[in-house]
């Protein structure tokens, strides 16, 4: 008789292969390193020590659960944000707070670490969404739809979706961006232009209004859910809402750094028994990465 290896499904059923699971205190530090490597600062004097730290952390895995390690990383990232505040996006600040949260959690007893990380993660998501909502509500040119109208007309990231939804050709949208560039830097070529007319469509105003109120609704909902003190009932709603936000928002505007950070925070705030949600956050992380692919070009290539 010939001995054969059991099939994968059979092996899993018979418990020979464990179902994949994520242990926050073991896996989150490693995922954080992957995230920070993909969004490393440009300054060599910050990049070099950070990469050295990460290399050491990957080799000496026990360092990743030391508060000292995360304190140094948070300090380096904080220095990056301080020195380049004029160009640093808000998720760079969130990287610093997250590393600080890891540092603080690892100073506690092992049985307290996950809870401390969960509390900090939940508050960070809640505060981030609260501030995002408050700024939007406090800005008149956001509430009247002007902001998304501008983004639709001039943001290259939204161009494929806008073109698909409204029928405006991508060439027209590119021409709008060229006109904006003319106002901004045409003066160096002797063209001092203060006003340009962008090509528009009545459909865009509706799309802008829909995006305006959708964003306020989803971000406001997330702020309430994550800052609400309840544990049991709200937990599933929180996870579902955050994953829905990630799947929809980052499809339209694939900002990978922010998306990944939110997914790590989402994983971090999961309770011990919420293994399925943690896997869902990992899947969302992969999905956000997939959104950064040139999907339009790939579809065109396959169609040919």
């Amino acid at each position, binding site marked *: 008789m010939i001995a054969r290896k059991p099939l994968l499904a059979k092996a899993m059923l018979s418990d020979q292969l464990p179902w994949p699971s994520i242990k926050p205190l073991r896996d989150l530090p490693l995922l954080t390193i992957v995230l920070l490597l993909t969004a490393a600062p440009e300054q060599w004097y910050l990049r070099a020590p950070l990469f050295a730290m990460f290399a050491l952390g990957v080799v000496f895995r026990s360092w990743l659960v030391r508060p000292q390690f995360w304190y140094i990383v948070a300090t380096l990232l904080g220095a990056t944000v301080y020195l380049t505040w004029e160009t640093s996006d*808000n998720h760079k600040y969130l990287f610093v707070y997250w590393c600080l949260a890891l540092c603080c959690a690892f100073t506690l007893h092992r049985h307290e670490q996950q809870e401390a990380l969960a509390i900090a993660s939940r508050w960070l998501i809640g505060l981030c969404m609260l501030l995002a909502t408050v700024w939007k509500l406090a800005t008149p*040119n956001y509430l009247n739809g002007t902001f998304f109208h501008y983004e639709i007309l001039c943001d290259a990231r939204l161009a494929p979706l806008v073109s698909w939804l409204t029928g405006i050709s991508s060439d027209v949208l590119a021409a709008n961006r060229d006109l904006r560039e003319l106002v901004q830097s045409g003066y160096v070529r002797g063209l001092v232009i203060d006003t340009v007319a962008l090509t528009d469509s009545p459909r865009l105003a509706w799309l802008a209004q829909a995006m305006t109120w959708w964003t306020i609704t989803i971000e406001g909902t997330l702020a309430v859910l994550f800052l609400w003190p309840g544990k049991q009932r709200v937990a599933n709603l929180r996870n579902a809402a955050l994953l829905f936000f990630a799947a929809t928002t980052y499809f339209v505007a694939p900002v990978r750094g922010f998306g990944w950070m939110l997914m790590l925070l989402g994983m971090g705030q999961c309770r011990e028994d919420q293994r399925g949600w943690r896997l869902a956050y990992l899947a969302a992380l992969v999905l956000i990465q997939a959104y950064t692919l040139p999907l339009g070009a790939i579809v065109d290539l396959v169609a040919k």
Partner: protein
Amino acid sequence: MSARHPTSDTRPEAPDPSDTDPEDRQFLLRRAAIAPLCLCLVAGLHAFRVVTCGQTQWKGGGFGMFSTVDSEATRFVRAFAQTPEGELPLDIPKYLEKTAAELKAAPTQAKIDALAGRLASIHWRRPDERLVREAQRWSDAESPFAPRKDAHALSESHLPQPTIGLYRSLEAIPPDQPPEHALGVSAIRVECWTMRLESGARNATDGVPYTTLRGEKLREATVETPVEATVETTAEAQP
């Protein structure tokens, strides 16, 4: 940060989390609150600067991204030199890009004055004239850079091809180069602008809707140049 307890891998597991005493619980909550508290402090500072310095909501850690057209990307800086030939645009050099970016992110009068002052301390020249001089240097038979006669066809294709009059803006003479052929500049004017979107208009002939993107000046500063920068110097004029 000091650890209150020994680190995780050197001490035994606690028996049961529910047995945690109130003091330990308070300690845990205080540690968990440090990062969110930092977020609140930075966001408060950002809000203060938005109100007092005109800082863009997009930058500074206040999480005001995607809330306004008035971002650092829609703001822009224009700089002009007043010369005997009239007002000429300046191409802001790379080493001042950070200063210009800081101005765009938070356009205070102090920042625009500082940028104008730094631009006023620079010697400026015409890039098209520089290219012509480089081309002449290449084609000069006495020059060590001149092509050999047997390589005529190849060398012609490698000559720079300046287009006179294409470059309207002046370029900065790098600080490590002598200020040869510098233009006489009497003053520098810097402007910081943002953009406004105005929609609802329709083209009168075909009724196609269009939206206007309009520049709006936020700040302006004019600085007179130091005396030594106003005199035109050339290589020929120097002893």
